[in-house]
C-alpha cells in the first residue's frame, strides 16, 4: 500500500545553517576595530553561525496533516521555511510537489491599507487572476470574521487587533488551494470560534489533496488537526509517528 501513497514533500538529510550578522558585541563596534578586521582579512567577529537543523529526513504524503512540535528554538519554524524554499539547505536536499506556501503569523501585509485592499493584494500575490480575486474577496472577509464588529474591512489594517490581523492573513492564505500549506502558529491566534473554523478549513484543504504542516505550541490544535506528528529537538527528529504516541513521549519529556 505504501506505493499507492504519493509523496508531496521529501526532506533528505537536510541541514540548515544561519549566518548571523550581529550588530557590535563588545569590542567589535568601534570603527577602528572594523577597519582592523578588514585590513587583516580576519573573519568578522560579528558573523556567527547557528546550526539550526542538523540532518532531518522524512517523507510527507498527499492528504496528510503533520504537526511539528518541540520546545522553543528546536528548529520547527526554520524547517518550515526551508521546506518553503525561503532558506537554503547547507547539505542534503528538500523536494516538494509544486510550490509550498508558508503562512506565518508575522506575514506582513500593508498596514496602511484597508483590510479589503490587503485581501485583493494578497490574492494577486498568490497568483490569482483579477476575476478570481473579485469572486473571492467577500468570502475571505466573511471567513475571517473581521466584520463581525462593524465594518472593519474598510479600515486600515493598523487599526486591527493582533488577533484580527492574524485571522485575516490566515483567511487570505487559506483561500487558495495549495499543494503544500505550511502553517506557523497561525491557529494559536484568534478566539475559540475562529479556531474551530480554521481547523475545519485545514481539514478541507487536506481533503483537496494537499499536505498541511502545522507548527503550534497548542497540543490541542495539533491533536485536533493532525494525525501524524514530528517532534524536533535541537535540530534533530526525536519522534515521528501517530500524533497520540509522539505527544505522549513529548509530554513526558517536557515534564521532566
Amino acid at each position, binding site marked *: 500500500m505504501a506505493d499507492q501513497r504519493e509523496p*508531496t514533500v*521529501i526532506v533528505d538529510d537536510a541541514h540548515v545553517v544561519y549566518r548571523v550578522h550581529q550588530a557590535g558585541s563588545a569590542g567589535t563596534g568601534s570603527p577602528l576595530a572594523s577597519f582592523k578586521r578588514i585590513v587583516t582579512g580576519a573573519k568578522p567577529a560579528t558573523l556567527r553561525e547557528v546550526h539550526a537543523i542538523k540532518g532531518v529526513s522524512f*517523507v510527507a504524503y498527499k492528504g496528510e496533516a503533520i504537526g511539528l512540535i518541540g520546545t522553543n528554538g528546536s528548529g520547527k519554524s526554520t524547517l518550515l521555511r526551508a*521546506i518553503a*524554499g525561503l532558506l*537554503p539547505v547547507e547539505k542534503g*536536499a528538500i523536494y516538494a510537489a509544486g510550490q509550498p506556501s508558508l503562512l506565518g503569523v508575522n506575514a506582513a501585509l*500593508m498596514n*496602511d491599507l484597508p483590510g479589503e*485592499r490587503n485581501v485583493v493584494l494578497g490574492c494577486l500575490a498568490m497568483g490569482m487572476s483579477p476575476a478570481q480575486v473579485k469572486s473571492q474577496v467577500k468570502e475571505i472577509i466573511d471567513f475571517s470574521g473581521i466584520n463581525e464588529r462593524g465594518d472593519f474591512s474598510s479600515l486600515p489594517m493598523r487599526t486591527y487587533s493582533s488577533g484580527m490581523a492574524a485571522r485575516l492573513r490566515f483567511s487570505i492564505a487559506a483561500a487558495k488551494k495549495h499543494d503544500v500549506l505550511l502553517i506557523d502558529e497561525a491557529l494559536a491566534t484568534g478566539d475559540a470560534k475562529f479556531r474551530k473554523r480554521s481547523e475545519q478549513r485545514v481539514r478541507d484543504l487536506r481533503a483537496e489533496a494537499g499536505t498541511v504542516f502545522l507548527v503550534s505550541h497548542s497540543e490541542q490544535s495539533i491533536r485536533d488537526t493532525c494525525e501524524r506528528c514530528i517532534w524536533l529537538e535541537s535540530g534533530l527528529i526525536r519522534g515521528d509517528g501517530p500524533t497520540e504516541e509522539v505527544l505522549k513521549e513529548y509530554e513526558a519529556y517536557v515534564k521532566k
Partner: protein
Amino acid sequence: MSQTAVADSDTGIPLRELARRHGLSAAGKLPSLPEYSRQLWSYRHFIASYANAKVTSSLGKTRLGMIWQVLTPLINATVYYVIFGLVLSTARGVDNFVAYLCTGVFIFQFTQSVVQAGIQAISGNLGLIRALHFPRASLPLAITMVEVRNMIASLGVLMVIVLAFGEPITVEWLLVVPIFLLQSIFNAGLAMAAARLGSKVADFKQLVPFIMRIWLYGSAVLYPVSKFAEKLDGWQLAVVEANPLLVFIDLMRHALMEDVHLAASPLVLWLEAIGWTLVAGLGGYVYFWRGEKGYGRG
C-alpha cells in the same frame, strides 16, 4: 528511531530516487529566464495593484493626498527657480536657464527616486517576501511604476514651466514620449540591480546618496553641458558625455527647447539612449533573476 536514515522506511528506496520518480522538484531551484519572464507576466496585475497600494499608503495619511503628486515637483521647481533664477541669477550663457535647469532636475529626479526606492525594494519588504511566493522582480518593477506615475505628473508640470518661460510648442515635443519610455525601461533595470545589491549588502544603502550626488554633478543638471567640453578632453570627455542621464537630459532639452546646446548630435544621443536602455534594462533584469532564490533569506 533512526535520525539519519536516507531511505524511505516503507519502501526502502533512496529518497532522491523517490523524489525523482514522483516528479518532485528541489526547493529553491532557479527557474529558467523565459519561465521566469512568463511567471512575471502572469503577475502583472499584482505589480499594478501593488504600485497603486504603495502610492495610496504613502500618501494616505496626508491631508492633501494625491495632490502631492503634482505639488512635489512644483515645489521642487520653485526651490531651484528661487536659488538659481532669482538669488544667484546664473544664466551662465544659456538662453532660458530656468527651463534648462528644470528639465535637468526633473529628468534626473526620476532616475534618482527609482534608485533610492529600488535599494529598499527587497530589504524593505521581507515580510511580504517570506510570506508569499511571487516573482520577486515584481517589487522593483512596482516601485518603478510608482515613480513612472509620479513622473507623468512631473512632466505635466515641467511642460507648463517650459511654456511659461517662453518656449514654443513644436512638433518635437512629441519626442517626449519615446524619451520617457526609454528612460522608464532604463530605470526599471537600475531598480532591479539596486534591489539585489541592497538586499545583499546593507552597506550599499549608505553609499547611494553620494553616488547619486556625483551622478548629479556629472549630468550637467545645474550648469551647461558646454562646461565639460571646456574643461575636459580626450577619453575623460568621452566618459562624461556617455553618461546615460546626461544623454536623457540632453534629449529632453532638445525636445522641449529651441536653440539648446547639446553634447552631441541628436542622432548620436538617440543611439546612445537606446543602447543604454538595452544594457541597463536587460542587464538589470538578468542580474536580478540570478539572485531570485536568495531574496528573503537571513
